[in-house]
């Protein structure tokens, strides 16, 4: 049973500390963080509302990070958030190769071992890898490509143990 009374509030002292992290900010009146708390509430309402619109548009029941990203791109008021959401990958882009530095590094690691590119070559069976959830999804969803032995270790076998197994 959800409580829609909206009694939950942001911690005022925490807001003040966050404000004062900025060296330029000096003294802050007691009422100020209280006022910011309200503005923050409204702001939260705004981004959640906008993100939810994207969620609904896509027929989803879960607000994903890239829904938020799209919302930021759609709404002028949220321009200042563009950098923060920049790193969020858009799944409709297909692969995750080179989308950001992180996944590139991981790709390099993989290529080093089994010389397999994402989505190409004899695809490995599902493995638990220590990487972001989204990439894992990609791999599991990827269809088994045609038996193209160009990428494997020369024996056409699917290497199960060869890859990084972080356990």
């Amino acid at each position, binding site marked *: 049973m*959800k*409580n*829609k*009374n*909206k009694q*939950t*509030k*942001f*911690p*005022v*002292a*925490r*807001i003040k*500390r*966050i*404000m004062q*992290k*900025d060296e*330029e*900010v*000096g*003294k*802050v*009146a007691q*009422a*100020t963080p*209280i*006022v*910011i708390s*309200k*503005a*923050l*509430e*409204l*702001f*939260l*309402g705004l*981004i*959640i*509302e906008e*993100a*939810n619109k994207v*969620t*609904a548009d896509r027929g989803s*029941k*879960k*607000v*994903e*990070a890239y*829904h*938020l990203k799209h919302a930021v791109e759609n709404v*002028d*008021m949220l321009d*200042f*958030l563009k950098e*923060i*959401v920049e790193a*969020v990958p858009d799944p409709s882009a297909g692969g995750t190769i080179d989308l950001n530095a992180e996944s590139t590094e991981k790709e390099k690691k993989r290529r080093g071992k089994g010389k397999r590119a994402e989505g190409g070559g004899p695809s490995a069976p599902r493995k638990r890898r220590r990487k972001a*959830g989204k990439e894992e999804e990609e791999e599991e969803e990827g269809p088994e490509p045609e038996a193209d032995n160009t990428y494997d270790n020369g024996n056409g076998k699917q290497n199960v143990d060869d890859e990084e197994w972080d356990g």
Partner: protein
Amino acid sequence: MSDHEGHGGAAPGTDDDLSLPKATVAKMIAELLPNDVACAKETRDLVIECCVEFIHLISSEANEICEQESKKTIAPEHIIAALKRLGFETFTEEVEDVLKDHKQQVKEREKKVGKLEASGLTEEELLRQQEELFAASRAKFQSTQQ
């Protein structure tokens, strides 16, 4: 002003980890979304980052406005002006209401203090009366224990 930030996450340790409590934000998000829609954990964390960024944005702007007025303390009025400058005019009405309420509460608190002073009781008298009340409730408590 003691502030019990009860949450299951990390304690507010170093300044660099300064963020908003995850549980609080998760609850607020749940209150905002329709009953059949959930929020991914990743999204919630991202939202928290956005909120912190918003605080910095407003504070920075308000600080400038404050300096322009040759004031040293950032007042709520500076926040409201900052909101307008940054394109958040739609927020100002409710924010001004909160400010009004707060000022009202402060006034009432001051009035209460005034009442106490006007009661003619010295601080010692008041302390004694307080002790009596404590003793009475202690006794009541102990009797219910038996």
